[in-house]
């Protein structure tokens, strides 16, 4: 059953339309991550779901009920904010219990629920503390606890990890994922960090300029991006984009190289060829590009090499033990199965590798 359905959601602020008809169905218990650059509309979408903003048009359905005209408190959702928004004048116990203020549970049931949540989040010893006595990660857990205690149909997370340092962020990422596996509620998670999206999501929704660009599993959006935007946004370092032209059953790159790909494209059609740095290696089979190594970034097992070519600078991955040196002239090759071809005009994919 779908626990959240968005139908043609439009949002305008004054005369500026920021969401242009978003449609999406999220299954019960699914972990969906909205990802995109700043201003793409992901947080606005979340706020519309929460009821913190009014929709201009379109429909939001939560657990089988259209909630457009319901107050946030009646939508059966809970939200974790970027700044945690835990009340500094209340103890952890009160903060977590705050979400139950309006529930119809008895006092004993409330206490049991609160203690259960505190135990899940490993916060039982901290219940008497004030937020100022907690670390960043602990505060984040209190915020999650306050959301969990209400047992909502949908959890909404608005960039909750962006204020944490890198190490803590990785740890919290894991904790949230484990938590989801344990409690199984539907989660909508907003982030601008593609690593968060890839590591946590069951499905990723990639947004740009108020439009959904692609919806798919992490593997789908990585291996079969629908557009140049998705291709470049997901994966680090970004996919290399090379200008080319369809000529008969092949694609001719600016470098003069010919890639044999029978896509049935119109002769002379301008295309963009996308190759991930992970799929582009110095040496190997038939080379598609040549150039001079300008920068070398050793990562241990592999080394990233920046190569200056006729098609501009590209990034390739070399064996970390014997990487080419700066100044070396290298020929780069790629497996034809890993090559993505996009329409140069629409920027949409023409073929997706299997």
């Amino acid at each position, binding site marked *: 059953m779908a626990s959240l359905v968005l139908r043609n959601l439009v949002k305008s602020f004054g005369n500026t339309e920021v969401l242009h008809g978003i449609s999406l169905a999220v299954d019960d218990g699914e972990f969906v991550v909205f990802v995109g650059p700043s201003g793409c509309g992901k947080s606005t979408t979340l706020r519309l779901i929460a009821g913190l903003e009014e929709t201009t048009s379109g429909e939001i359905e939560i657990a089988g009920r259209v909630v457009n005209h319901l107050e946030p408190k009646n939508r059966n959702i809970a939200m974790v904010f970027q700044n945690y928004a835990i009340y500094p004048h209340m103890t952890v116990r009160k903060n977590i219990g*705050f979400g139950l203020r309006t529930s119809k549970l008895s006092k004993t049931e409330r206490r049991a629920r609160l203690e259960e949540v505190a135990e899940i989040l490993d916060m039982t010893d901290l219940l008497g503390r004030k937020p100022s006595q907690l670390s960043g990660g602990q505060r984040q857990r209190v915020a999650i606890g306050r959301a969990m205690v209400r047992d909502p149909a949908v959890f909404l997370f608005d960039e909750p990890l962006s204020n944490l340092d890198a190490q803590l962020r990785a740890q919290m990422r894991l904790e949230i994922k484990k938590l989801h596996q344990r409690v199984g509620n539907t989660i909508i998670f907003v982030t601008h960090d593609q690593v968060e999206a890839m590591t946590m999501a069951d499905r990723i929704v990639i947004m740009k300029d108020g439009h959904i660009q692609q919806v798919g599993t992490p593997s789908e959006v990585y291996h079969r991006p629908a557009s140049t935007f998705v291709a470049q946004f997901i994966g680090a370092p970004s996919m290399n984009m090379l200008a080319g032209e369809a000529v008969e059953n092949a694609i001719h790159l600016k470098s003069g190289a010919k890639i044999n790909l029978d896509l049935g494209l119109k002769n002379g059609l301008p295309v963009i060829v996308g190759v991930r740095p992970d799929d582009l290696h110095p040496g190997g089979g038939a080379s598609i590009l040549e150039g001079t190594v300008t920068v070398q970034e050793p990562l241990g097992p592999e080394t990233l090499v920046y190569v200056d070519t006729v098609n501009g600078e590209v990034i390739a991955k070399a064996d970390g033990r014997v990487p080419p040196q700066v100044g070396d002239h290298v020929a780069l090759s790629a497996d034809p199965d890993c090559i993505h071809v996009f329409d140069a005009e629409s920027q949409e994919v023409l073929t997706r590798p299997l």
Partner: protein
Amino acid sequence: MYAVNSEIQAASETLPSKHALRKPVNMGQICRWLLLFAGGILMVAPIAYMISTSLKWPHEIYNLSLVPEEPHLENYIYVLEDGRFYGWFINSIIIATITTASNIIFDSLVGYTLCKFRFPGRYIVFIAILSTLMIPTEMLVIPWYLMSQSLGWLDSYWGIMFPGLMTAFGTFLMKQFFETVPDDFIEAARIDGLNELQIWWTVAMPLVRPALAALAIFVFLGNWTAFIWPLIVTNSVEMYTLPVGLSSFGDEADVQWELIMTGAAISTIPTLIVFLVFQRFIIRGVVMAGLKG
């Protein structure tokens, strides 16, 4: 071993002597201290004179010496035994307390609304409230008087209190402080199921406690020391507030300064208590503790 010892010795030789460690005399620093000292004297002098005068006999009032020739407590006994003083004291307590409570509630309610709600005309309302700050009390006294007269509030608590139950300054102060309360807190409470009034009271108000404390001190002191309006609106001696009552000690021919100063000295006690109670709430950084890492 020898090498280590010699190193220690060498190190101690290079240490500057105690005398050399003392910071050089800084003229700027001295000027600053002198200025602060003068300021301090200027602040303390009237209080010192007030207390000194309250301990003097009438004949030495105009002797500017800070130390009374024969200090005594007769003035205190006289003032405290005078039944009128208690009445004025109670009047002042009632008026200052009610106006303080009223300002805390209504100024913050309006400030919160102007700060956190988006509605047409919000800015105009705010400017209109602010613009009333430019009208001096002296100009308002006559309309207030006429209003009190027609409402039958002359010589009553209502009459004394009504102009100060809400202030533009308090509204402005609270609005500015509510700006520092992140919207996330309010939205989180909204999702948690609180209505707007509950959000204001249980979430927003505790977060602006320092501002409330400051407002309470301002309003209490302002009303405690208010003179012109209470003087005009009251007719009977029983309705006088402390400042008005104290000024009535004596007549045109003979002002009993020692009694006025005694009353004034006693009347500072509640203001000190208010300050001591509220100043501990003025702690910075309360709001930020619930945010970020």
